[in-house]
């Protein structure tokens, strides 16, 4: 690695030094210059077909496609020279001659590279006055719909399905201006990762059926997050409108998911918008769960816990911060903690190393283990009669009710109030779900990654670390935790696996735990 030859060149007057073999386009990115492009995508093999990324290289006879041209020592590159601009203007005009110009009804509008570059560099008016070609909209199967009339034939989708998914169900069919993206009848985009073609499509040709006509791109608020739907920990963006999650999309992270996200993760977001949330603390009075304020509920919980063992049944979808504090509660009361993990079919993305929809369908399995919780399919087996059962966002689906009945009391710290809790719980403390609070997850390879609040929690629900921190304080451990980062700092100080980490150092891409680093170097 140390022997990589560096090449020095000048792009738009800025000197830049990049490893030998880098494309001009990538070098320009490092120099802070975006070369407009369509077919190029850093996660896919180079095609060099859209001809949008043409740049002027001094002393070269022709404009160079910057995605497919490697840097040369001493090269002087002009991205915005009149010649280069003229060429790209020409490409933009050609891309639009057969385009329906239907931005007002197109889902891509607002996040469309055809729109963006046309505003940036294109002609004010097209000169095309002949009939436009027409092809019908086609359902590609899976979550994907193909609007051929908007397609610019960049072939990103074809290359993704071929080179990354290893399931080439898409192909360019026909040729000349009759060409379009086609599939074989009966062979649909059913691959578990096929939905990525929607994100990869730079225009409105491949659309998500799930989010079709649901929101305009500019109405969406966005927050960086981590997919909670399996233990892979794909980085994602949560997009909301009016406090509703509208769409989940992958966020690039070369160490985890490159640029991709599976369909299961992407489409499994409706639970984040559940309307049947528990939005107020509750305390059982005279056999009935009654609304209470936080002070009362916390006092009631502390009273139940007084001198008893706490047995925590935790959801592996809770943050490291919440699990850490629950772990402290277990330690404080001399109790125990367990969790179980929903299982599903594993589905790898073969073109990316170590990327798969994991069988463990929970975000923080590793985090739960590191927090001292025991993984078990019979999660209540470790509970002793008379323990205070703390159900931390676990719905207890399929758990034998008689098992739970062995508990001396039940405290629910959760987002919802499952049916059994209406008569089984003594205290209910409402918390935010993972898109309503800040926190971290530790993925299956031990990578600790931050997620950010994307929407407000309902009613009086509080961030999980906050609620559990108060519960802890009410039994005499500490004085509460006010922010997620403060909680994480306490975790980092207490746990060698997280030593030296902070929200600042984790930033947007995360970092491996000490154990994960040892594993990786072994």
């Amino acid at each position, binding site marked *: 690695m140390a022997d990589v030859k560096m090449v020095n060149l000048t792009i738009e007057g800025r000197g830049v030094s990049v490893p030998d073999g880098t494309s001009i386009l990538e070098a320009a990115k490092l120099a802070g210059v975006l070369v407009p492009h369509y077919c190029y995508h850093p996660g896919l093999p180079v095609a060099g077909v859209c001809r949008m990324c043409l740049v002027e290289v001094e002393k070269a006879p022709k404009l160079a496609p910057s995605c497919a041209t490697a840097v040369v020592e001493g090269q002087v590159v002009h991205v915005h020279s009149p010649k280069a601009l003229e060429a790209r203007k020409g490409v933009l005009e050609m891309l639009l001659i057969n385009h329906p110009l239907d931005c007002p009804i197109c889902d891509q509008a607002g996040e469309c590279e055809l729109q963006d570059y046309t505003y940036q560099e294109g002609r004010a008016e097209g000169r095309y006055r002949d009939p436009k070609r027409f092809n019908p909209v086609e359902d590609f199967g899976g979550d994907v719909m193909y609007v051929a009339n908007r397609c610019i034939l960049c072939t990103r989708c074809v290359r993704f399905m071929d080179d990354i998914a290893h399931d*080439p169900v898409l*192909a360019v069919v*026909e040729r000349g201006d009759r060409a379009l993206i086609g599939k*074989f*009848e*009966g062979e649909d985009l059913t691959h578990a990762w096929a939905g990525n073609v929607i994100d990869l499509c730079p225009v409105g040709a491949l659309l998500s059926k799930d989010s079709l006509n649901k929101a305009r791109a500019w109405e969406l608020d966005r927050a960086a997050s981590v997919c909670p739907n399996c233990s892979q920990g794909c980085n994602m963006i949560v997009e909301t409108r009016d406090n509703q999650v509208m769409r989940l999309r992958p966020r690039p992270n070369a160490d985890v998911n490159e640029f991709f996200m599976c369909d299961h993760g992407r489409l499994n977001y409706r639970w984040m918008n559940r309307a049947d949330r528990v939005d107020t603390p509750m305390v059982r009075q005279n056999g009935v769960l009654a609304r209470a304020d936080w002070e009362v509920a916390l006092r009631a919980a502390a009273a139940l816990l007084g001198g008893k063992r706490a047995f925590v049944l935790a959801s592996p979808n809770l943050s490291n911060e919440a699990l850490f504090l629950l772990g402290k509660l277990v330690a404080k009361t001399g109790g125990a903690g367990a969790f179980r993990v929903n299982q599903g079919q594993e589905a790898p993305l073969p073109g990316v190393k170590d990327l798969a929809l994991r069988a463990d369908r929970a975000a923080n399995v590793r985090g739960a283990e590191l927090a001292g919780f025991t993984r078990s399919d019979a999660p209540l087996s470790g509970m002793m009669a008379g323990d205070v059962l703390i159900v931390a966002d676990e719905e207890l689906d399929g758990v034998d009710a008689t098992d739970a009945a062995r508990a001396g009391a039940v405290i629910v710290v959760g987002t919802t109030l499952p049916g059994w809790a209406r008569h089984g719980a003594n205290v209910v403390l409402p918390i935010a779900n993972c898109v309503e609070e800040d926190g971290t997850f530790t993925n299956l390879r031990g990578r600790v990654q931050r997620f950010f609040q994307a929407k407000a929690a309902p009613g009086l629900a509080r961030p999980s670390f906050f609620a559990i921190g108060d519960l802890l304080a009410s039994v005499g451990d500490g004085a509460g935790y006010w922010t997620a980062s403060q909680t994480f700092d306490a975790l980092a100080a207490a746990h060698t696996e997280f030593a030296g980490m902070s929200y600042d150092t984790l930033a947007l891409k995360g970092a491996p735990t000490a154990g994960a680093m040892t594993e990786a170097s072994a």
Partner: protein
Amino acid sequence: MTNNNEMGEMRSPGDASHDLHATYTPVFTGARKAELDELLTRYPTKMAALLPALWIVQHERGWVPAEGMAEVAAILELTPAYVKGVVSFYTMYHQHPVATHFIQVCTTSPCNVCGAEDVVNALLKQTGCEELGVTSPDGKYAVIEVECLGACGFNTPLMVNEQFIESVTVESVPALLASLG
């Protein structure tokens, strides 16, 4: 499924025009299989035998049906979509059944200046096809214009299926059609 009228009618997956594999008899058995096996020895990859394999299908069936694409794909370890992409690239593979005498007339510039369009018109009239690409009422003929057949000095050249015929003139059209029967 919501759909905008502006987008036109949406085709949904799986409305195949014919039921795959229902009545399809594989092409690559016996002699055809042996022929393909011999072809495979000529190339370092299976994929390279794709064009020859598709030719075999077309010779056997007169066109390349979807089932044929799927069969070739399976043998050469490709996907049917990939094969469809290749088939549709090359104009000589027919993706639909064609008339008994599929007449392909070169009308590119060198032939065009020598009256190729007159030959086309004569053919359209005398075959009863009337329109380009339309099969004659008796199902025997279809006439299409094709691009340069590479016989520019012998205009007008045309191909009837895979038979190459040079120097066709308006006057010789009746004799040509008579010879086809």
